[in-house]
């Protein structure tokens, strides 16, 4: 179909074709016996740079709307982290420490789904 919304006939034989997939993601273990602050370290060792790139892009989009909003994220969101239930508070701080990304920005990523129901 050449006009939106680009519906089409039901597809067949796609699995596990790469025609509409760019591959499979890696698998990591999260050891719940470890301290929450360090249990995400292995994931962040491999994906930290990608997380930073994504958050930088979100900050750019927010900044395009209002540069002050980014300052608010770093000023107020860290205060929320300490009020999160365990182990989520420590896990966010651990990811921040492992990646060098501000903890408020890690929280920003984690509240996307709550906020976007608007």
């Amino acid at each position, binding site marked *: 179909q050449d006009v*939106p*919304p*680009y*519906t*089409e006939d*039901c*597809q*067949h*034989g*796609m*699995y*596990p074709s790469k*025609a*509409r*997939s*760019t*591959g*499979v*993601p*890696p*698998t*990591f*273990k*999260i*050891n*719940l*016996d470890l301290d929450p602050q360090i249990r995400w370290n292995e*994931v*962040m060792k*491999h*994906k*930290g740079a*990608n*997380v930073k*790139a*994504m*958050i930088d*892009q*979100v900050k750019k*989009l927010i900044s395009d709307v209002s540069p002050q909003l980014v300052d608010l994220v770093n000023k107020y969101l860290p205060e*929320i982290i300490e*009020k*999160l*239930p365990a182990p*989520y508070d420590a*896990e*966010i701080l651990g*990811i921040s420490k492992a*990646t060098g990304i501000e903890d408020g920005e*890690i929280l920003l*990523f*984690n*509240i*996307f*789904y*709550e*906020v*976007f*129901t*608007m």
Partner: protein
Amino acid sequence: CTSIVAQDVGGTLYHARNLDFGLFMGWDTKNHTWLIAEYLHPLVVNLDFTRNGTTVYKTVNFAGYIGVLTGMKPGVFSLTLNERFNVNGGYIGLIEWILGYRKAHWTSFLTRDALEKSNSYEEAVDMLSNTEILAPVYYIVGGSKPGQGAIITRDRQSLTNMYSMAPDKGMWYVLETNYDNWTDPPFFDDRRTPGKKCLSGVGNKKVDFQTIYDVLSTKPVLNQLTTYTALMQVNKGTLETYIRHCPHPCWAW
């Protein structure tokens, strides 16, 4: 998002989903893609949460995101979370939470808590139905026994609606996108009709990973926001994830 729980003629349940995210968050005019969706692709990871060296639950996550949008407790149940758009949305719950009302749970932390603490399909359904949450959502839950599949429509305070499969009455699957199942989806975002058409066309005699993947690969069920497709079979403890790409021309959502 599109979530499906389907049962084959032998009573085996399959749970699958497309995770769509990034609407209105920057459009790449050169590649005709959503910027944030593209940035999310390399963040997709399969996670195996272990305790005492044993798998407790498996999830598909974006690295850096600690809640659960897609997960499975092997042998027990599987769950997915779909956004539910509502004026009384998550931003209100978030503001209330910041102001000190902390009885409500974060929606994707509740799913992780359910995977951690619930030891049956019924327990998980009860927890996801009756716990106060920050944002309206759809929780889609599948079990390990025939007939265990439901869409839990939630507002922030309470259960709005529960829609369960009933294979003995011919309702061998449930399919949820981002709209209440008792209303028609909007004409500008109808992934339900093509999804149901393709799934019904497959029939419960042929339902398996292959055929469900085909349904989730059909436009506009597959669209520019789709980051990954996850396929789960609880009894075997199988979770497969595929990072998605929707070739042009492809609808933006």
